[in-house]
C-alpha cells in the first residue's frame, strides 16, 4: 500500500495536470466543432494522430534548425492538419448539412478508416519516437523526485490555450459568430453570415488544435497507429463531462479526469481500464448536462429526419420477404458450409442492428453502447451452456433475459438524458460492462474469453444452425416490426417527435422510452446469444466500442427511416466487411471510401435511395 506523503501528492497532481493539458487540446477542438456544426466528429482522433505523424516528419526535415526547427514543425503540423480539417469539411461534411446529425458521424467514421490505412501506408507500422523538445529536455527536482521540464511546459499550455480561446471568442468578430452559431445557427445564417465559410474556419480551428495536441506529444510519446481511437473516446468524455459547448467545462473536466487517474492508480492499479468512464457515469448521473453544461438547447442529436413516417409493408414487399426467408431456408440444399455460416452471421447482425434501430429510429435515442447488451446476451448464453450445462433452449432464453435485465438498469440511468448526453452515458455503461467482462476472470475468463460454446446436435452442423438462426431471427425481426406498429410503437414515435404533446395526450414519455430501452436490450441479447453459438466462443470484444460502432453503421447505412433499413444495412456492411477482410490488405480504407460514397450519395441510407427510386417509378408509371 502506498503511503501518501506530501511529495507524492504534489508530483501526482502535476502528472495529472500534464495529462489534462494534452487531453484539453483535443477536447477543446472537438467541443468547438460540435458547438457550431453539430458534427460528432469521430475523426478528431485522426487529426490528433496526423498532427503527431506530420510533426515527426517535419522535425526530421527541419532538424538542422535547432529549436526553431522543432517549434516550427509543431506549428506547421498543426496548420497542415487544420488544412486537412477544411478539406474534410468541404468535401464531405458540407454535403451532409441537411442530414440528421448522425450521418456526419458516420462520414467521419469513414474518414477514420481511411486515415488509419493512409498513415500505415505513409509512415509504416513501427512506432516512431520523436525528438525531445530543445531547451526543455531536463528535469527539475521536487523534493526527492525529478519532474520533467517538458511536463511543466505542458501544464502551462492548457490554461494558456484556454485564455487564448477565451480572448478569441470574446474579442473577435469570428468569436462572436462562433458563439452566435453555437446558440442558434439558423438565425446566424438568416442574418446573412456565410455559413460555409464559418464552418470551414471552425473546422480549421478545431482540427489545428487537435493537430497541435498530437504534435506536442512528440517529446513524451511514441507516435503510433492506435493514437486516434484511444484519444477520441477520452476527448468525448471530457467534452461531455465538462458540458457541451463549454470550454471552461472541458478544461475542468480534463483536470478532474487527469487527477483522478493519477491518484487512482496509486490505490487500484487495475482500475485503469474504466476509471474515465466511471467518472463520466457518476457525473452524468448527478448532473445530466455535465459540470458546466446548460439546458437541453445545445445538445440535440436528431436521429431521424422529422418527416419520415413508417408505413406497413406493401403486399409485394411481403412476398419479397417471404421469398428471402424461403431462399435462406433452402440454402442447406444447395449452398456450401461457408456461405451458410456467413448468412447465419448476417441474420444475427440484422437482429442486432434492428434492436438498435428500435431504440434509435423509433425511440430517437442514439446509443453508443448498444454492444453491451449484445455482449451480455452472449456471455449469458455461453455461461448457461458451459458452466451451468443448461439445455440449448434455456441458454437461448438466458441471453435476452440477462440482456433485458441489464437494459432495465441501464435504461433507468439513460432515459433521464437525451441526445449526445444519453449516447455518452450509454457508452459509459457499456465500457463499465466491458471492463467487468475483462477483469472478472473467474467467471468470464477475462480477455481469453469463454471457449467451447458450440451448439449441441442437431444444431451443430452448419445447416442445422442456419435453420435455428433463421427461425429465431425471423421471429425476432417480425416481433420488432409488430411492436413498431402496435400502440406502444406509436407512443414511442410520438415521444420521439413531440414529447410534450405526447405527454399531454396521456403517454408517459419516460416510461415508454425506458421500456423501449429494455426491449431493445433484450433483442440485442437474442442476437448476442446466437452469435456466441455461431462463434463457439465469447470475448470481451463483443462488448467493445467497435461493436457498438458497427451497429450504428449498419443502422445508418441501411437507412434509419425504415424498418427494413437495419436489415439491409447489416447485410451490406457485414457482408462487405467479411468480403474485404478476406482478400484486401487495405480493406479499412476501401470500407471507409465505400461508407463515404454511400453517405454522400445516399444520406438517407440504402433504403432511402431505394424508396425514392420506387417512388419515382410509381409516379412515372402513374403518369404514363
Amino acid at each position, binding site marked *: 500500500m502506498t503511503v501518501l506523503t506530501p511529495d507524492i501528492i504534489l508530483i501526482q497532481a502535476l502528472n495529472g495536470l500534464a495529462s489534462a493539458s494534452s487531453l484539453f487540446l483535443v477536447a477543446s477542438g472537438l467541443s468547438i466543432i460540435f458547438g457550431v456544426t453539430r458534427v460528432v466528429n469521430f475523426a478528431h482522433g485522426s487529426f490528433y494522430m496526423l498532427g503527431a505523424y506530420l510533426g515527426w516528419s517535419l522535425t526530421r526535415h527541419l532538424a538542422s534548425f535547432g529549436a526553431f526547427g522543432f517549434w516550427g514543425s509543431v506549428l506547421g503540423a498543426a496548420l497542415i492538419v487544420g488544412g486537412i480539417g477544411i478539406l474534410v469539411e468541404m468535401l464531405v461534411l458540407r454535403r451532409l448539412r441537411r442530414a440528421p446529425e448522425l450521418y456526419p458521424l458516420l462520414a467521419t467514421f469513414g474518414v477514420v478508416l481511411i486515415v488509419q490505412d493512409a498513415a500505415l501506408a505513409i509512415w509504416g507500422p513501427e512506432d516512431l519516437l520523436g525528438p525531445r523538445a530543445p531547451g526543455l529536455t531536463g528535469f527539475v527536482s521536487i523534493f526527492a523526485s525529478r519532474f520533467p521540464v517538458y511536463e511543466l511546459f505542458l501544464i502551462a499550455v492548457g490554461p494558456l490555450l484556454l485564455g487564448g480561446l477565451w480572448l478569441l471568442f470574446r474579442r473577435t468578430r469570428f468569436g462572436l459568430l462562433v458563439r452566435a452559431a453555437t446558440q442558434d445557427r439558423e438565425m446566424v445564417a438568416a442574418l446573412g453570415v456565410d455559413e460555409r465559410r464559418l464552418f470551414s474556419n471552425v473546422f480549421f480551428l478545431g482540427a489545428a488544435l487537435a493537430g497541435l495536441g498530437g504534435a506536442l506529444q512528440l517529446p513524451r510519446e511514441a507516435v503510433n497507429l492506435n493514437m486516434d481511437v484511444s484519444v477520441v473516446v477520452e476527448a468525448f468524455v471530457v467534452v461531455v463531462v465538462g458540458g457541451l459547448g463549454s470550454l471552461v467545462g472541458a478544461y475542468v473536466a480534463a483536470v478532474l479526469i487527469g487527477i483522478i487517474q*493519477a491518484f487512482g*492508480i496509486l490505490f487500484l492499479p487495475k482500475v485503469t481500464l474504466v476509471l474515465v468512464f466511471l467518472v463520466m457515469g457518476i457525473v452524468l448521473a448527478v448532473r445530466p448536462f455535465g459540470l458546466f453544461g446548460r439546458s437541453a438547447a445545445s445538445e440535440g442529436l436528431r436521429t431521424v429526419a422529422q418527416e419520415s413516417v413508417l408505413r406497413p409493408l406493401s403486399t409485394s414487399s411481403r412476398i419479397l420477404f417471404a421469398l428471402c426467408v424461403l431462399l435462406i431456408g433452402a440454402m442447406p440444399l444447395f449452398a456450401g458450409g461457408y456461405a451458410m455460416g456467413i448468412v447465419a452471421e448476417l441474420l444475427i447482425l440484422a437482429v442486432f442492428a434492428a434492436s438498435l434501430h428500435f431504440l434509435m429510429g423509433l425511440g430517437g435515442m442514439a446509443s453508443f453502447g448498444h454492444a453491451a447488451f449484445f455482449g451480455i446476451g452472449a456471455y449469458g448464453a455461453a455461461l448457461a451452456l458451459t458452466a451451468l450445462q443448461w439445455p440449448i433452449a434455456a441458454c437461448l432464453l438466458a441471453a435476452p433475459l440477462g440482456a433485458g435485465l441489464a437494459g432495465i438498469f441501464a435504461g433507468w440511468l439513460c432515459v433521464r438524458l437525451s441526445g449526445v448526453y444519453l449516447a455518452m452515458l450509454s457508452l459509459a455503461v457499456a465500457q463499465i460492462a466491458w471492463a467487468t467482462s475483462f477483469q472478472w476472470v473467474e467467471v468470464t475468463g477475462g480477455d481469453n474469453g469463454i471457449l*467451447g460454446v458450440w451448439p449441441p446436435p442437431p444444431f451443430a452442423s452448419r445447416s442445422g444452425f442456419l435453420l435455428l438462426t433463421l427461425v429465431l431471427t425471423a421471429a425476432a425481426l417480425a416481433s420488432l416490426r409488430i411492436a413498431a406498429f402496435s400502440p406502444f410503437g406509436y407512443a414511442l414515435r410520438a415521444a420521439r417527435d413531440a414529447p410534450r404533446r405526447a405527454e399531454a395526450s396521456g403517454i408517459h414519455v419516460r416510461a415508454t422510452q425506458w421500456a423501449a430501452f429494455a426491449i431493445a436490450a433484450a433483442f440485442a441479447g437474442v442476437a448476442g446469444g446466437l452469435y456466441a453459438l455461431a462463434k463457439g466462443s465469447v470475448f470481451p470484444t463483443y462488448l467493445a466500442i467497435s461493436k457498438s460502432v458497427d451497429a450504428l453503421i449498419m443502422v445508418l447505412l441501411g437507412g434509419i427511416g425504415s424498418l427494413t433499413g437495419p436489415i439491409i444495412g447489416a447485410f*451490406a456492411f457485414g457482408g462487405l466487411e467479411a468480403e474485404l477482410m478476406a482478400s484486401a490488405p487495405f480493406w479499412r480504407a476501401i470500407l471507409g471510401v465505400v461508407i463515404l460514397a454511400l453517405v454522400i450519395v445516399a444520406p438517407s441510407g*440504402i433504403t432511402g435511395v431505394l424508396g425514392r427510386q420506387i417512388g419515382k417509378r410509381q409516379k412515372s408509371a402513374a403518369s404514363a
Partner: protein
Amino acid sequence: MTTLDRRGFLAGASMFASLGAPAILRAEDAIKIGEVNSYTAQPAFLKPYRQGWDLALEKVNAAGGVDGRKLETIFRDDGGKPEDAVRYAGDLIDAEKVDVLAGGFLSNIGLALADVANQRKRLYVASEPLTDALVWAKGNRYTFRLRPSTYMQAAMLVEEAAKLPARRWALVAPNYEYGQSANRWFKDLLKRAKPEVEFVAEQYPALGKMDVGATIQALEASKPEAIFNVTFGGDLTNFVRQGTTRGLFEGRSVVSMLTGEPEYVDPLGAEAPVGWIVTGYPYGDLDTPQHVAFRNAYKAKFAEMPKLGSVVGYETVNSIAAALAKAGSTDNEKLVSALEGLKLVTVFGPVEFRAIDHQSTMGAFVGKIALKDGLGVMSNWSYRDGAKYLPPDSEVRVLRPAG
C-alpha cells in the same frame, strides 16, 4: 448494392494483393495452409512475420515441396478480433479446404483458433500467441505452439533476477492476460528461487494507453530496488523515455520481457535502456551457420535485417513442412502424431515439439541491452534452450487436463 458482388471485390482485391504480396503458386495438388493473423492490427510484428513466412515457403517449394507437392498459403486478416478469426478459420476449412491451420498473434485469438481446431479436428500450429493456456489449461490434441510461452520467458528471466542483490521488486505489466500471467509466474518462480524477495508495487496500465508519468511515480513511491517490466510497443517506448528523464532506472536493475526483440527496441533508437536484462533476439551477432544462411537469404530478398517475427514466420512454415514430410500424408490425425515429438533444426538451434503438452522447446536469448551505432542491441547474450525452462512433467500433467 447490387454492384457489390463477390467477383468485383475479388478483382479489386487481387489487384491490391499483387502490390503487397508475391503471386501465390496455384498448383492443383498443392498442400494448403490456412493462415489467420491480425495483419492490420499488429503490423509491426506481422509484416516481418509474413516476409519470413514467404521466404520459407519459397525455400520449401524450390526444393520440390513436400513429397512432390507444393505448399500454398491462404492468408486472412482478422483485424485483431477473435470472432473474425473464428469466421475465417471456418471459411478456410470449409471453402478453401485447407489441410492445416496456422497463425495467431494475440493470445485470445490463438485460443479461439485452437478451439475451432479442436472442434473441427484440424491441426493448428500456433506461432506467436504466448499464453500458457494455449497448451496447458485449454490445450487440446490438435494445437501445437512454436514460441516459448509466457512461463518459459518468465522462468528465463527469473534465473537472472535471482542472481541480483535486489530484494524489493516492483512490477509493471499491461492489463490483460499476458501481462497478468507474466507477473504471476515471475513472482511465483522468483519467490521459490529466492524466498527473501518482496514485491512492493504492481502496476497494470491499460494496454496502449499507459498514463506513463503517473505510473512511474507510483512505482517510484514504493522505493523498489529492482523492476520487472512486461510492457511492450508504444507503452514501453514512453515508459523508457519518461522513466529515464525521471531517474526511475538509476541505481536499479530492470528485468524486462521481450524488450530485446528488434520489434520493440528499434523504435527507441539511441534511447534504448542500456543495462536492462531482457529476452530477445540478437539478429546482428548470432553467427551460427543456420542463422547466417537465414539472415543472408532474408537480407537478399527484403533488403533489411530480420526481426523476431521473421524467424517465427520462417520456422512455423518449416515446422509444418517437417511434420508433413514425417507424416507422409495430410491426414490430420497422422500429422498430430508426427508433430508429437517432432525434432527439427531451426535458426535458433534444435527444437522439439513435446509430446506431453505440444509446446516446442524453441528457446529465447537472454542478455543485456547495449548501444551500437545508435541502436539498442543485445550484449552478453546467451541462448536459453526452452526445454530447460518448463516445469517437470508431473506438474505439466496437472496443468494440462487434456493430456
